[in-house]
């Protein structure tokens, strides 16, 4: 075969050189007079400093019937302050080369700033102003409410988002905040007004409940002086306790089809409840889930993508939803949602699900292999210096740890724990994570085409919903 004619000189696959040691950085922890906790971390060469401020406000703090108020409050922080109009505030930040994002998730409200170090003081001053003296003008909040309602409609049209909403609704009881969208529904958002946002801010946004994580090249920066002149001016006593009801969960095996007549693909979201990262099983769970669906050479994509071509890619991953302090007074342990997610062409929906279940059953019957486990460890541990090259990824991980009530050295320790996790432990964790008999399957797709083939699989009762 002349096509295969190769004229290059071949060499054997080279081995690795000597690794240079790398470890996840340890932050320095301190507390300002206002009660604000500060985690700082010097990263040489990172000229863009990342500041993550975790406000310590889980969504359970939202008043009854006002789902989405935390998110609107977070967005409203930058829409006008005592010293700046909304337009001026945005322009001042942007003139500093800064980007600011604010959002609310189940675990907390976050303010996230990135700015060149030469403009750190200026930008932190603006952020302090937003935290200390937001105006939440009626006109701005009304605008955010209307935009949010438009945004909800946009999101609903996205099959992935629609599936996530349905899965939360199926897994958690209606009374649990976790069962409902982070940023509210049209109904709840429509009830929100500026007075409500101001009251929520007054009750909840306090430095004593917040942590600021600051990461970057801090050479020549007197950070204490910068903080004193900026975030240090934000004061106020601690907020009251946030209710912490145990969420409960129902992961009885079943299938819910969200009907999208004419859809060319079916969005799959297969999920179940898992533990939070305090659970000693976490490293094994992370390894096992990687082997199942972490990359395109993992078990699921090896079949669904690389053998069958049903999909552009299917992933399995955990998402922590609730993570109380282990020594706290919480009535229930933490929770994550463990999912398998992807989309397949409509005609392949039944076969792709059949193969997914077959992969899960094969895993349960035969377990993972040592080479699979080794490959997963080498990737998850080895990739750390790449993953944390930028200051923002370090800051984000540190802030996640704060919100999940994990120790500051959690990520650093996790690498050692991953490396010492056995194949057997990873197998057990993956099998327990995705038991073939009790998974909740959400399918966003054309019910008329996919219902029958899915019913025939026997993976649970099938219901169809719309919207």
């Amino acid at each position: 075969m002349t096509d295969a004619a190769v004229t290059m000189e071949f060499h054997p696959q080279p081995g690795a050189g000597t690794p240079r040691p790398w470890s996840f950085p340890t932050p320095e922890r301190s507390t300002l007079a206002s009660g604000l906790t500060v985690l700082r971390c010097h990263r040489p060469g990172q000229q863009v400093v990342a500041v993550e401020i975790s406000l310590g406000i889980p969504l359970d703090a939202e008043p009854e019937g006002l789902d989405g108020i935390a998110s609107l409050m977070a967005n409203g922080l930058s829409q006008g302050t005592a010293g700046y109009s909304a337009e001026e505030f945005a322009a001042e930040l942007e003139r500093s080369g800064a980007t600011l994002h604010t959002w609310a998730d189940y675990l907390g409200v976050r303010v996230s700033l990135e700015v060149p170090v030469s403009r750190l003081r200026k930008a932190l001053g603006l952020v302090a102003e937003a935290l200390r003296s937001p105006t939440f003008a009626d006109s701005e909040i009304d605008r955010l409410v209307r935009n949010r309602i438009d945004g909800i409609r946009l999101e609903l049209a996205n099959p992935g988002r629609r599936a996530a909403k349905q899965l939360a609704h199926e897994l958690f009881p209606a009374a649990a905040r976790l069962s409902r969208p982070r940023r509210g529904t049209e109904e709840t958002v429509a009830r929100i007004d500026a007075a409500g946002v101001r009251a929520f801010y007054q009750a909840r946004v306090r430095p004593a409940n917040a942590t600021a994580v600051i990461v970057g090249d801090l050479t020549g920066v007197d950070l204490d002086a910068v903080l004193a002149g900026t975030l240090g001016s934000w004061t106020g006593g601690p907020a009251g306790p946030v209710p912490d009801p145990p969420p409960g969960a129902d992961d009885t095996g079943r299938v819910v089809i969200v009907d999208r007549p004419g859809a060319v693909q079916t969005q799959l979201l297969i999920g179940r409840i898992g533990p939070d990262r305090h659970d000693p099983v976490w490293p094994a769970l992370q390894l096992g889930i990687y082997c199942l669906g972490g990359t395109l050479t993992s078990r699921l994509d090896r079949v669904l993508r690389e053998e069958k071509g049903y999909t552009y890619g299917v992933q399995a991953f955990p998402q922590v939803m609730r993570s109380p302090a282990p020594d706290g007074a919480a009535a229930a342990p933490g929770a994550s949602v463990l999912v398998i997610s992807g989309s397949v062409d409509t005609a392949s929906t039944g076969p792709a699900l059949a193969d997914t279940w077959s992969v899960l059953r094969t895993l349960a019957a035969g377990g993972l292999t040592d080479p699979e486990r080794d490959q997963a460890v080498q990737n998850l541990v080895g990739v750390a210096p790449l993953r944390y090259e930028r200051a923002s990824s370090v800051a984000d991980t540190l802030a996640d740890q704060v919100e999940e009530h994990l120790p500051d050295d959690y990520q650093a320790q996790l690498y050692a724990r991953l490396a010492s996790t056995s194949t057997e432990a990873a197998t057990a964790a993956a099998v327990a994570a995705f038991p073939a008999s009790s998974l909740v399957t959400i399918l966003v797709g054309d019910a008329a085409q996919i219902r029958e083939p899915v019913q025939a699989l026997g993976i649970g009762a099938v219901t169809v919903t719309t919207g």
Partner: protein
Amino acid sequence: MPVDHTGTQYSVSSHPTATEHRLANGLRLVLSEDHLTPVVAVCLWYDVGSRYETTGHTGLAHLFEHLMFQGSAQVSGNGHFELVQGAGGSLNGTTSFERTNYFETMPAHQLELALWLEADRMGSLLAALDQESLDNQRDVVKNERRQRYDNVPYGTAFERMMALAYPEGHPYHHTPIGSMADLDAVTLDDARAFFRANYAPNNAVLAIVGDIDPEQARQWTEKYFGSIPRYDGKVPPPDGSLPDIIGTELRLEIEEEVPARALMAGYRMPPDGTRECDAADVALTVLGQGESSRLYNRLVRRDQTATSADFGLLRLVGAPSLGWLNVKASGGTELAQIEAAVDEELARLGAEAPSAAELDRAQALLEREWLDRLGTVAGRADELCRYAVLFGDPQLAFTAADRLLSISAEEVRAVAAARLRPDNRAVLAYEPVTLPGQEAGQDGAAGQAAPPGRDESQDGAGQ
């Protein structure tokens, strides 16, 4: 240089530099040292993209990019992914109009493995390429198309925009993802011919950036790539030149199942590599980047007729660039109202130069973008390749931000006056087939149209 610009006091970490080398077979090599973190980026740009595809063969460059991950003489089926990820690296490839790139970011001590892998497929892909791989990856790419374009609201907007703004038969008339029919028609012989014509060392630039010993990196490059034969039959890219101005407004009214009305407009802009293109970048940033741009302030904050308003620049070298305006209407707002306001704002910028504060803001945003782009080894490697392949000089990557900062307010006004005119645009006007307002709430972030980014089509681990 603008007075009192806020961003000029910082620069890319430790003023990076790069050296250039050329192997006897024509492979260009760019090396840039950075010892801050023990990582290294290997980036390989091939001077081929969807603009080389002819009628009936759309999508071939991108489908071929997938085939590059299906093994070569010494690398098994998924071996490329397995070896890189098993070494603690990450990897991917992407295809755009003007290039196809492949990259590995590795722990520094695994550099040699990445070079061996890239050389093996450059020199011996055809030893492994077979019908089974082609058929499988054809299905994967068709599902990529469904997932990223066909099954999301506004997902085909970019494809429709290019088809409208660049005339029939023009090399940029179609996007890299290609059509389903053309993907179905690709044969093994097409793929083989495509490889022979384009995947040669003298049609590529290799950049190695990070914690390296440059002399060692150069020797390894010579060792692994040096024996791969050059190919001298490469045809020049098709002519993509067009008049500066379209001359009439092109318009497509689209009735589709989308959640909101949307106004998208593509303006014909100067090609990349010109001072006017940089001026256009600044102009579009003044108008539609960030949350205090003119259009954001006007449409989202004051008129409250839109939920978002973005104006970005798709830089193209072999054809006019495209200024891409994307406005999502708020509530029941009619597009005519939005369009009138847009026209007013664009005309205003053409009539009167932006204020010093506005210019300052736009340039600070653009400089920050470059700081981010050059702030990782992978980003730096990609930019070095880009300037080497498209402009013949990798060093231009390090001065790109300076060029943007040197643009004057008058240059911004001039390009706006010359280009941002109704007779120089292609418009997509989206009208929902069912009016919004009858559906329940939803979670998460907003659905998005395909952005006019340079990485139009990507293959990857699906993260």
